[in-house]
C-alpha cells in the first residue's frame, strides 16, 4: 500500500512545483490552499497506515458578523464572510509548521521508499519499522504543537470544571432556598404563635408545638436530601465501593456489585464516579426498562475502571439525552472517558475509565524485588573501585609515567594494554554508578517493560 502510494506522491510532488510557481510567482494565490489540502490528505493516509496522530492546528472558526452585520478581517470590513474566511484559512495553512514539514516529507519520501525497497522486500516487518520512524520524524506533531494541544485541552477542562461547579452551587442554593430555609421560616413563625398562645390557650399551643416538631422533621429530611446530592454520607464514611453498594440496595433494579479497590481514590474523583454510576443506574431503570444491572469497579494500575451493564432494551443514544453527556463532562475534568455499547435490543454496557487517579503507592508491587536491592547495594559498594583507584588514579599515574605502584592492575599489563584497560575501567565504574542510580528510578516508573532491566552487570569490581 505504501509503495503504491509512491506513484501518487510523485504525481502530487510534480504538481506542487507548478502550483508554487503559479501561486507565488504569478499571483494565483487561490491555488495554494486546495493543493495544501491535497497534500494533507496524502500525508494523513500515510499517518493512518503507520499510526501517527494528526499534527495540524485546529481550523479557524467561521467568521462572525459584527454588530453592524459586517465581517471584519484586520482593518477591512466585508459584506460577506467569504473573504475573511478565506483569509483565516490562508493564515491557518501558511502559519502551521506542519504544512511545511509535509512539503519536505513529500519531497524526500519517494527517495526514502526507494532506498528502503530492498529492506521491504527482504524483511517487511523491519522495513515498516524503519519507515515508521522516518515518517514520525516529519509527520508527527512537534513537541511545541503537543504542548499547545495540551494547554488547549486544559483550558477547556478548566472552564468546564468552573461551569460545573457554578451550576452545582446554583442547584444547592435553590434546593436550600426552596426547601429547608422555607421550612425553618415556617418553624420560626409557628414558634412565635406558640409564644403568644401558651398562656391564653395551652391546648392550642400544644397542637402548634406538635406541628412545629413535624416541620423541623421535614426540614431535616430535606437537608438530608441536599446533603445526599452534594456528597452522599456513605461515600464520605466508607468510600466508593460501599457507597455504590448502598446505592445498589436503594435502586429498584436488582444490582450486583463487584468491587476490587484496595485503596480509596481522591474524594472529588470518588464523587464524580459515584454520581456517574448513579446516573447510569437511573437511566437503565427509566429509559432502558432494565430489571437487573451489574456494576464492576476495578483498577488497571493506577487507572480506575467502572463497568455498568444492564439487561434493558439498549439503543441508548448519547446525542439524545443529556445524561451521558453530563457524565462525560463530569469525568472529563479528571481526563476520564466514557465508552457506551448499546445495540438496539440490549444489553447496554457503559465503561468509565479514569486514568491515574488511584494512589501511587499501590500501582503494582511498590517494593523492589530483593535481587534488585542487593544489586543496587553491591553497585554502590564496589563502583568506586574500578573508577577511582584502578581507573582515574591509574590514568594519572600513567600520564605521569610512574610504574612503581604495585596495587594498580594496569602496571602488571603489557604497555599496549594499559590505556585500553584503564579507559575500560573508568567506563565500567561510571556505568556502575549510573546503573545504581537508574535501577531504583526506573523501578518507580510504573510502566516498566519486562526484561529491560540489565542483569548480571552488578558483579564488576576489583
Amino acid at each position: 500500500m505504501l509503495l503504491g502510494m509512491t506513484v501518487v506522491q510523485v504525481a502530487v510532488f510534480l504538481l506542487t512545483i507548478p502550483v508554487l510557481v503559479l501561486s507565488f510567482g504569478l499571483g494565483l494565490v487561490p491555488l495554494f490552499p486546495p493543493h495544501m489540502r491535497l497534500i494533507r490528505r496524502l500525508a494523513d493516509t500515510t499517518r493512518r497506515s503507520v499510526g501517527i496522530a494528526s499534527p495540524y492546528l485546529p481550523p479557524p472558526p467561521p467568521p462572525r458578523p459584527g454588530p453592524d452585520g459586517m465581517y471584519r478581517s484586520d482593518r477591512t470590513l466585508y459584506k460577506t464572510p467569504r473573504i475573511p474566511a478565506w483569509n483565516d484559512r490562508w493564515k491557518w495553512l501558511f502559519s502551521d509548521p506542519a504544512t511545511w514539514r509535509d512539503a519536505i516529507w513529500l519531497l524526500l519520501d519517494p527517495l526514502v521508499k526507494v532506498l528502503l525497497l530492498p529492506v521491504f522486500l527482504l524483511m517487511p516487518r523491519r522495513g515498516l519499522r524503519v519507515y515508521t520512524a522516518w515518517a514520525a520524524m516529519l509527520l508527527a506533531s512537534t513537541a511545541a504543537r503537543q504542548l499547545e494541544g495540551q494547554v488547549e485541552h486544559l483550558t477547556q477542562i478548566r472552564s468546564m470544571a468552573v461551569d460545573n461547579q457554578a451550576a452545582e452551587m446554583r442547584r444547592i442554593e435553590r434546593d436550600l432556598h426552596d426547601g429547608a430555609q422555607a421550612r425553618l421560616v415556617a418553624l420560626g413563625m409557628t414558634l412565635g404563635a406558640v409564644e403568644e398562645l401558651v398562656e391564653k390557650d395551652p391546648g392550642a399551643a400544644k397542637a402548634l408545638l406538635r406541628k412545629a416538631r413535624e416541620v423541623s422533621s421535614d426540614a431535616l429530611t430535606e437537608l438530608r436530601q441536599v446533603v445526599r446530592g452534594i456528597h452522599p454520607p456513605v461515600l464520605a464514611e466508607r468510600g466508593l465501593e460501599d457507597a455504590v453498594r448502598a446505592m445498589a440496595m436503594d435502586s429498584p433494579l436488582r444490582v450486583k456489585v463487584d468491587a476490587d479497590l484496595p485503596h480509596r481514590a481522591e474524594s472529588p474523583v470518588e464523587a464524580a464516579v459515584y454520581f456517574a454510576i448513579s446516573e447510569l443506574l437511573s437511566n437503565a431503570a427509566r429509559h432502558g426498562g432494565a430489571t437487573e444491572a451489574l456494576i464492576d469497579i476495578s483498577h488497571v494500575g493506577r487507572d480506575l475502571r467502572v463497568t455498568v451493564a444492564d439487561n434493558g432494551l439498549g439503543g441508548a443514544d448519547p446525542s439524545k439525552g443529556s445524561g451521558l453527556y453530563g457524565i462525560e463532562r463530569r469525568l472529563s475534568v479528571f481526563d476520564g472517558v466514557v465508552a457506551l455499547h448499546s445495540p438496539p435490543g440490549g444489553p447496554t454496557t457503559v465503561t468509565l475509565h479514569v486514568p491515574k487517579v488511584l494512589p501511587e503507592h499501590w500501582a503494582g508491587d511498590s517494593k523492589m524485588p530483593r535481587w534488585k536491592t542487593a544489586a543496587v547495594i553491591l553497585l554502590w559498594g564496589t563502583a568506586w573501585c574500578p573508577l577511582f583507584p584502578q581507573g582515574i588514579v591509574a590514568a594519572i599515574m600513567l600520564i605521569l609515567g610512574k610504574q612503581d605502584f604495585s596495587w594498580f592492575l594496569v602496571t602488571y599489563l603489557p604497555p599496549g594494554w594499559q590505556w585500553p584497560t584503564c579507559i575500560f575501567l573508568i567506563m565500567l565504574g561510571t556505568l556502575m554508578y549510573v546503573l545504581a542510580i537508574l535501577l531504583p528510578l526506573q523501578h518507580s516508573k510504573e510502566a516498566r517493560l519486562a526484561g529491560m532491566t540489565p542483569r548480571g552487570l552488578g558483579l564488576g569490581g576489583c
Partner: protein
Amino acid sequence: MLNRVLIAEDLYLLRDGLVHLLQAHGFTVVAAVESGPELLKALIELKPDVSIVDVRLPPTFTDEGLQASLEARRQIPGLPILILSQHVEQLYAQELLADGTGAIGYLLKDRVFNSDQFVDAVRRVAAGGTAMDPEVIAKLLASNVRHEPLGRLTPREREVLEAMAEGRSNAAISQRLFLSESAVAKHTASIFAKLDLSPSDDDNRRVLAVLAYLNAAKGG
C-alpha cells in the same frame, strides 16, 4: 430492670439532651463518651444494658461509632446497641443485622424528638428486641416490592409487615393500625405463609426473620 445506659455522641448539646431525656425516664447513664476508641473500650469494660451510639464520631468522623459497635458485638455477641444517625442506609442495617442475635436498633436522629417512641425503642433494644427506622423498612420494601412474592401481599399486610419489621409486637401493631390483636395475628400468619417463613411467637425472632427475608430477597 435493664437501665444502665451508655451514650456515645460527639455533639455536646445532643449528648446532654439524651442524658437528661434518659435520666428523666429512669435510666442510669453509666458513661457518656465522644470518640470511637473511648466507645469501644467503654462498651467492652462496662457492658451496659443498652448503648446509644452515633455513627459518626471523632477522630475520623466517618463511621467510627458503627465500627466500634460491630467490633464490640463481635466480642460480646448480643450486646444491645441502638445506633443513631443523620441518615439511614440499608447497607448499614444489613451489617448490623447480619449476626442475627437481635438487641439492635438503627434510628434516624430525628426520632429523638418524639421522646415516648424513642424511649420505647431504647427499652425494646435493651430487652433484646429490634428497633429499625421506618425509613429503612420503607426503603427495603420499596426496593423489593416489584419482586415476587412480596408483590402478593395486600396493602394491609404490607402495613403490618412494615410495623413488624420495625420491631413492634402484635400489641403495638394493633394500637398503631387500629386493629384488634387477633386481626394482627391473622395478618402476620398470612404474611408468613406468603413469604414461606416459619411462624414464631417470639417477637424478636419474627422481626429478624422478616429482615433476613428482605435482605435475602434484595441480595438475590
